[in-house]
């Protein structure tokens, strides 16, 4: 079932100024409930702008965005839409409002006016899901890098969203925190939450079921990561790297070693090589 629908979405910054900047020129995109969609593209290709259109933080210049059937351009739907599509930004330090973990998580549902018994339940659930239940009184600034991102996610979960948009949340993280955050998003997706994952890391893209690539404000690709990384010319055009496993696989295939599938991560590469070796002996 379609959760988010973008129809001919255009977004231009600074319309009143002399040099308006057109960030998105006509995006048609449908995101279904429960999907894990990676969004990629060069710096400045419009990824963050698109992300901010999905929950109505930005309103389309023309075209429209529907969230669960509601038009994001209409004021009366604003809070419903923002609590349906939660948004996690890049630098957690800049998005914390409160000085304890528990208060931080409560901030969102408090804004919505959730009655107190349900509020407590929501906060506890969000803390539990993100593994922060033991740290309710800690200052967010004292958390580890991974802990901060889990808190930013917990703060969103307390709004009871159906979709989470993570806008380059892992960009500034070390490998451990990145893995932790991705694993949490994948787990939430398994529980039915829709995930929109904006990133520059191709190994993370390989984990998604669907990739949307933006190219100068246009949709450059929409499909599976396998088909994307199979097309090296397209990747180069979109300014994308290949995940290292796909790079090795392409090299070997070019040299004449045939592999049954295009592996995107080390585990898939190992499996596929093991099958090739078996087939030979």
């Amino acid at each position, binding site marked *: 079932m379609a959760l988010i629908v973008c129809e001919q979405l255009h977004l231009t910054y600074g319309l009143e100024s002399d040099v308006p900047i057109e960030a998105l020129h006509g995006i048609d995109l449908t995101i279904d409930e429960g999907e894990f969609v990676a969004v990629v593209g060069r710096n400045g290709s419009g990824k963050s702008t698109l992300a*901010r259109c999905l*929950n109505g*933080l930005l309103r389309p210049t023309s075209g429209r965005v529907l969230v669960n059937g509601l038009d994001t351009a209409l004021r009366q739907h604003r*809070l419903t839409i*923002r*609590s349906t599509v*939660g*948004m996690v*930004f890049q*630098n957690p*330090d*800049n*998005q914390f*409002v*409160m*000085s*304890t973990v*528990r*208060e931080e998580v*409560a*901030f*969102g*549902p*408090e*804004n*919505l*006016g*959730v*009655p*107190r018994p349900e*509020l*407590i339940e929501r*906060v506890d659930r969000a803390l539990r899901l993100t593994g922060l239940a033991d740290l309710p*009184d*800690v*200052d967010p600034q004292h958390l580890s890098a991974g802990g901060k991102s889990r808190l930013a996610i917990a*703060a*969103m979960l307390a*709004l009871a969203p159906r979709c989470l948009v993570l806008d380059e949340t892992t960009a500034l993280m070390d490998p451990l925190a990145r893995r932790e955050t991705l694993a949490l998003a994948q787990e939430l997706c398994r529980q039915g939450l829709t995930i929109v994952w904006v990133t520059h890391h191709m190994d993370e893209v390989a984990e998604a079921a669907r990739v949307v690539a933006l190219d100068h404000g246009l949709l450059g690709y929409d499909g599976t990561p396998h088909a994307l990384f199979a097309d090296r010319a397209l990747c180069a055009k979109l300014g994308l790297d290949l995940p290292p496993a796909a790079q090795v696989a392409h090299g070997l295939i070019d040299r004449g070693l045939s592999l049954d599938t295009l592996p995107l991560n080390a585990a898939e590469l190992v499996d596929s090589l093991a099958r090739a070796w078996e087939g030979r002996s």
Partner: protein
Amino acid sequence: MASLEGLRNVSIGRYVPGTSALHLLDSRVKVGGFLLVVALAAIVNGLAGLAALVIWMLILVTLSGIGLRSTWNSIYAALPFIVVLLLLQLAFTPIRPSDRILLAWGRLRLSWPAVRLVIVALLRFFVLMLAVSLLTGITSSGALIRGVEGLLRPFTHLGLPAHELALVGSVALRFLPLLGEQVESIAMAQASRGLADTRSRWKLAATARRVAQLIVPLFVDVYRRSEELALAMQARCYNGGKGRTHLIQERLTPRDWLALAILLVSSALVAALP
């Protein structure tokens, strides 16, 4: 180089989680007590009274467990500015013929009223800095908002946006220590390109230029941060104080009443001192 490191050292505005008796007080009592101390610092003019206030605050800071040393460090960071201001005041306070002259050196004379004025200002500065450190040290931002909001509630009927004021104040306080870190990082980044010989910082023109060089990137940072924070708050459905619910509801306990009593009695004593 110690000065570069010192900037990060600002603990004002930083909440120090803990379970001291002071931490456990109702947030309205904390904010009310803070306001009382500030008012006292402004009203009391006697040296003994102000000294008593400083000692009183030092005792509370110690009891709260937020760390006397880090509190002192953050006060120390602001001290040079205050000292310069006070020296200026010392130089420009007019001297009347009847004043007692403490020191005469060429054309420079120090009169007792001028020195007294400086000491009073310095003590007030200490009281204020200690009070702010203490309040933010024992009060989480949520509690701070509740406290201010609770105290201002009677005025909401007059159209006062109590919640918004409380939120803005608490967020601003939270930004303070981050600002210190930011300034330090900028100063270091610039110093490593040969800017900012810290030894020349007392030369006025150099100082002014230096401050300008720090302010532009700092402004960019602050702007970026506040923009991101505003977006993050919008994304979390912030819509002003109307219709908000509260995770924590506080009720005044006997402990709070006791604290209030102690506060009022000691305030009266301080006010009575010469």
